[in-house]
């Protein structure tokens, strides 16, 4: 033998940290599968699928009134909500270096729009304010963070040359803002697109947006009308660049608040009761004086809530999140070549684009709702829907990213190219996007409870139905905490893997 490995030399491959972390997550997902309820409970899913497919090919655009109303209300709520969020976010970004401001923003964005809507429904009823705030508050939290990160990238040299004593506000508008303004504009535009999806979904809790009409059509089995509604929604999103124009924006913003419909029955006593009675833990509310008995009742109340509701809710939420995350990763790796110049020609890519656009434009909540109709309430529809939606989003970003990779002229093609040239090069980026998405998947998983899957949202929704708002608030707080833990973990892993840790630059 000519070559003998030196003692201690590598005789088998050592896997990189990225691969080991991926394997760890796959293992966690496999273990989670044991605990997951994946049953199909509907009697005849295929017939239902057939009826849905028939609805898609025979969309009923004659339901003009409801379609027009759905489109108008969805846009109006998104516009007002996102405008308010951008304004609040912009102001908050100026104070983002202050700890409590950062924490409040983190909590605001860790709670899903629908949860916010459910809270505001208790306070304001079905008034337009409910929908507007449900979008504005979580979006203000995320906008504040992204704006603050963006503003930090203002040219430092330009700040250094300013004369001493330049007024703070002048400095802001002359030096800190101009060069990053275009990024802030683009991000806000992207937020508006997200806002349209959020606005549509808010219909599921009773606001007069797309989700409301969709739910009605579905429950009546009127799939042709549902298909028409969804197609209108895709057209609305696809033509966004055509109708969202700087010149028209002012006009929209003036008109939108007048278009919002809903009851305007805001009563002060409702607001006061919400804060002074409804959300006070029951043992405290009913106590005449604060004594040892109340303490014991409170402990029992807390213990009951934590063990009977929070704990199973957390387990189900985490189980579903971890499976959906890995499924998203696998679909992403399958989806991105569909739009990549490295793999498909023009026609193939066009088909890929249409598929990915439809999947990522459909709010995951609506996808889950559709699959639930097919398969009945279990984790299966949620996993498939979350993986499709998120896989399409990351697949789209990765596909674009892969086009920028330069290959040598004689490189491999087909599967070999995929496995040896492309995937290794974009794996880091892939993990970065996926871990950004982790927290979002978890947020969405929690909310799916209101569709009957036993995640945290299920217990929150049940408590709401019983009008036990004290329980709702505690469970919401736990949901927010869980989200912040995932967010922190994600940031830790991204830092360990030396992946870019900023959200602003990639719209995921």
């Amino acid at each position, binding site marked *: 033998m000519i070559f003998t490995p030196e003692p201690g030399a590598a005789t088998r491959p050592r896997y990189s940290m990225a691969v080991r972390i991926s394997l760890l997550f796959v293992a966690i997902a496999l273990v989670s599968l044991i605990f997951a309820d994946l049953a199909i409970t509907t009697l005849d899913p295929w017939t239902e699928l057939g009826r849905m497919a028939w609805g898609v090919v025979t969309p009923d655009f004659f339901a003009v009134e409801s379609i027009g109303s759905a489109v108008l209300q969805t846009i109006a709520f998104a516009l007002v909500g996102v405008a308010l969020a951008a304004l609040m976010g912009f102001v908050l970004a100026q104070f983002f270096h202050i700890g409590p401001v950062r924490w409040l923003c983190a909590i605001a964005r860790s709670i899903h729009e629908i949860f916010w809507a459910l809270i505001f429904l208790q306070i304001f009823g079905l008034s337009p304010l409910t929908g507007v705030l449900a979008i504005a508050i979580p979006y203000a939290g995320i906008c504040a963070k992204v704006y603050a990160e963006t503003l930090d990238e203002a*040219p430092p*040299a*330009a*700040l*250094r*040359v*300013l*004369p*001493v*004593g*330049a*007024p703070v*506000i*002048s*400095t802001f*508008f*002359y*030096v800190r803002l*101009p*060069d990053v*303004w*275009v990024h802030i504009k683009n991000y806000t535009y992207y937020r508006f697109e997200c806002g349209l999806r959020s606005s549509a979904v808010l219909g599921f809790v009773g606001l007069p947006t797309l989700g409301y009409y969709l739910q009605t059509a579905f429950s009546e089995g009127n799939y042709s009308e549902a298909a028409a509604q969804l197609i209108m929604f895709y057209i609305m999103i696809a033509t966004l660049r055509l109708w969202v124009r700087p010149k028209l924006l002012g006009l929209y913003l003036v008109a939108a608040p007048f278009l919002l419909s809903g009851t305007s029955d805001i009563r002060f006593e409702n607001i006061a009761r919400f804060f002074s009675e409804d959300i006070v833990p029951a043992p405290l509310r009913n106590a005449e004086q604060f004594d040892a008995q109340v303490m014991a009742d409170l402990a029992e109340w807390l213990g009951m809530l934590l063990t009977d509701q929070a704990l199973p809710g957390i387990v189900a939420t985490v189980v579903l999140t971890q499976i959906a995350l890995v499924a998203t990763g696998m679909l992403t790796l399958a989806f991105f070549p569909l739009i990549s110049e490295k793999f498909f020609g023009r026609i193939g890519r066009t088909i890929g684009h249409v598929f990915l656009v439809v999947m990522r434009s459909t709010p995951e909540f609506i996808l889950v709702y559709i699959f639930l109709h097919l398969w009945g309430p279990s984790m299966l529809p949620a996993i498939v829907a979350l993986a499709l939606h998120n896989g399409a989003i990351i697949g789209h970003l990765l596909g674009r990213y892969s086009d920028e990779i330069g290959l040598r002229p004689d490189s491999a093609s087909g599967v070999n190219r995929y496995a040896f040239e492309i995937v290794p090069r974009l794996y880091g980026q892939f993990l970065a996007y996926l871990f950004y998405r982790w927290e979002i998947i978890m947020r969405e998983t929690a909310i799916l409870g209101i569709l009957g899957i036993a995640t945290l949202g299920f217990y929150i929704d049940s408590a709401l139905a019983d009008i036990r708002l004290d329980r709702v608030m505690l469970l919401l707080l736990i949901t927010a905490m869980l989200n912040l833990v995932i967010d922190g973990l994600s940031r830790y892993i991204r830092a360990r893997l030396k992946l870019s840790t900023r959200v602003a630059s990639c719209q995921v």
Partner: protein
Amino acid sequence: MLLELQNETLGYGQEPVLSGVSIAINPGDRIALIGESGAGKSTLLGAIQARLAQQAALIPQNPGLVATLTVFHNIYMARLNQHSTAYNLLNLVWPQRREIDAVRPLVQRLGLEEKLFERAGSLSGGQQQRVAVCRALHQEADLVLGDEPVSAVDNYQSRTVLDALHERFDTVVLAMHDVELALQYASRIIGLKDGRVALDEANIGLRLSDLDFLYQVGDDLHP
């Protein structure tokens, strides 16, 4: 005296770039800092700037422009501290005649008049550097600190820039890469080498060959 450093160690974070620095700057000094790139010229300028920020106009190596704003606005920025916030914001969206008239002679002299309302980011490197010079000229300051302010400007323009700076400011401290120009303009030369001030002399009878040692590798030749 404007400033005195005595046996100071200068640098970023833990790493000292210059040590044992003792220099004094007096009003009217026209100092050229010379030495190889990496010798610590920027470090020394930074230290001076940190101590004289109140009175100094700065021309950094990276011109420090706001790319999306016009040349006019970038120059006006030197006087942000002279006006109220309201006036500054008004002038941002609607440039005021008075301010334009104040800026115009500067851009005329440095050959940027046609660029006055173009975005700074669309200019060439040399033009951007001249905008940074105009900004410094526009600032209410007693002295100017420049980090290679003519590195991207051609020879003819270099003289225009240096003439303008020396006319406008009583005290001038410029890091220079062109030793010939340094000898022509400076009244005093400070040479840096091997992390120390290797030369600090009045520019009387100094010749190019006297400064060669600053750019030689290895042995520590002192004149």
